[in-house]
């Protein structure tokens, strides 16, 4: 069974249609990258998967169950699908450890000491142990984004959604964040990644979907899509990306 099944997903912002009957299935442990120009609907699609953005038509299912099904309760879905944002969105008035343990303690009712021990262990696993008591503004952008990823992992989700997580980072800090994502792939995490890092998408994705005008215009394994795109719109997009020097042309 597919982990995530999206059927006929349609979404309007006022008059403007941002998603046009999108179908997408994601298998367990699969890493899917969504690429496309700004405004193509990729971030909206991502946020519909965990119900953060409400959609107008269609269904999203997690392990065969509609995400609006009552069996998830109010918090069940958020526990099983984590999301990381472009701007990290860490809580600036809380220490790193408080950021990470907030949801386990307040939402999932875990014992504070137990949650803190688990949080520390998770931080150490990702090389952030020494920052547990630090506040977000004391960390670099790359460190903050790594903390944000750890925060979304603290509830042990089955699926991780990553929304342009490197777009706000200085180029020299992108690597450390991408490394974590590669490690997560190795550990078998199912991920949906919206990214502008084409080289990274080519390396890490099992499948790349190119979105344009609220539709998935073309999808396939990264080597096929990046080197022999079939759809003229994909070809044009990739030509622009290559011309901008953000992806080496593959012959």
């Amino acid at each position: 069974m597919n982990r995530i099944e999206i059927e006929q997903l349609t979404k309007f912002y006022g008059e403007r249609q941002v998603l046009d009957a999108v179908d997408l299935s994601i298998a367990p442990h699969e890493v899917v990258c969504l690429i496309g120009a700004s405004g193509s609907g990729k971030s909206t699609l991502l946020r519909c998967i965990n119900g953060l953005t409400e959609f107008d038509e269609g269904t999203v299912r997690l392990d065969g169950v509609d995400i609006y099904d009552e069996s998830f309760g109010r918090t069940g879905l958020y526990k099983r699908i984590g999301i990381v944002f472009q701007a990290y969105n860490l809580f600036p008035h809380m220490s790193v450890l408080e950021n990470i343990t907030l949801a386990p303690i307040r939402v999932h009712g875990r014992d504070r000491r137990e949650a803190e021990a688990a949080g520390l262990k998770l931080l150490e696993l990702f090389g952030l142990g020494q920052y547990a008591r630090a506040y977000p503004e004391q960390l670099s952008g790359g460190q903050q984004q790594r903390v944000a990823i750890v925060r979304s992992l603290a509830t042990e989700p089955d699926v991780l959604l990553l929304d342009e997580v490197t777009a706000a980072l200085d180029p020299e800090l992108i690597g450390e964040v991408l490394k974590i994502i590669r490690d997560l792939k190795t550990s078998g995490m199912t991920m949906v990644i919206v990214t502008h890092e084409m080289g990274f998408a080519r390396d890490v994705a099992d499948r790349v979907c190119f979105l344009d005008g609220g539709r998935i215009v073309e999808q396939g394994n990264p080597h096929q899509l990046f080197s022999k795109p079939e759809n003229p719109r994909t070809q044009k997009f990739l030509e622009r990306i290559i011309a901008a020097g953000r992806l080496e042309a593959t012959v």
Partner: protein
Amino acid sequence: MTRRPGKGRRQIALKDRLAPVLISLASVVLVFGAVAWFVGTAEQWPRIQRQFFSIDAMIEAAPGVARGFLVSLQIWLISLVCIGIWALVLAIFRAMSGPWFAPLRVFAIVYVDLFRGLPALLLVLLFGFGIPALNLPGLPKEGLFWGGVALILSYSAYATEVYRSGIEAVHEGQGMAAKALGLTQWQTLRYAILPQALRNVVPAMLNLVVALQKDVALLSVLGVRDAVREAQIYTARTFNYSSLVVAAILFLLATIPLARLTDHLARRDRQRRLQGAK
């Protein structure tokens, strides 16, 4: 992190810094000295001094006015606590989204429109004279109590708006992150938004604190024996206005440090933001 200037730099800077300070001092002394001289040598000055600045009258009136001022301070402090809490409740009503909270939202909006649109003096008169006149069983009958209630109701409307601006200034990504972690609307406010919002509003709130300290004097129309009322009583007896000047001095002694504190906090806050944006 502050970078300390080196020794050589400091020596040059000292001379450069001293000149503007001296010029400022000299011009201040010159201007205010001239004003004092003109006023002091004016033909009518002794009369003015007797009427407003008579030392004897001031000393005579001081104990009564000071006692009244303590009453003013008490009303001020109690009102502050009530306003801080009530306005926060209203701001939370206002911030709750979703159809179930519509009545609370509407209540908060109507409340703010109503009490911000009415003069505080009108409310003080309405509550302070009107409600005790009803003679309702089980409710306090002192004008002081109801006048205080009127001030609290009025100022809470402004304070609600200050809280609201603080809540809205918190980046929307914070609410989204909290929601994505599964926090309820209330938990999002309580743990993610309000701690940041409250820090945002401190300078603006202190402005209200200063304004309220002065508006406590409105209760004197109800016969509450605050500083202004006590000063008036002295004036009515002696036809000398120095007692009001005593009250004025007491108010300034309380408000000016508060205003300085407000400026200081606002400046520090701005610096913190600039550093944060770096």
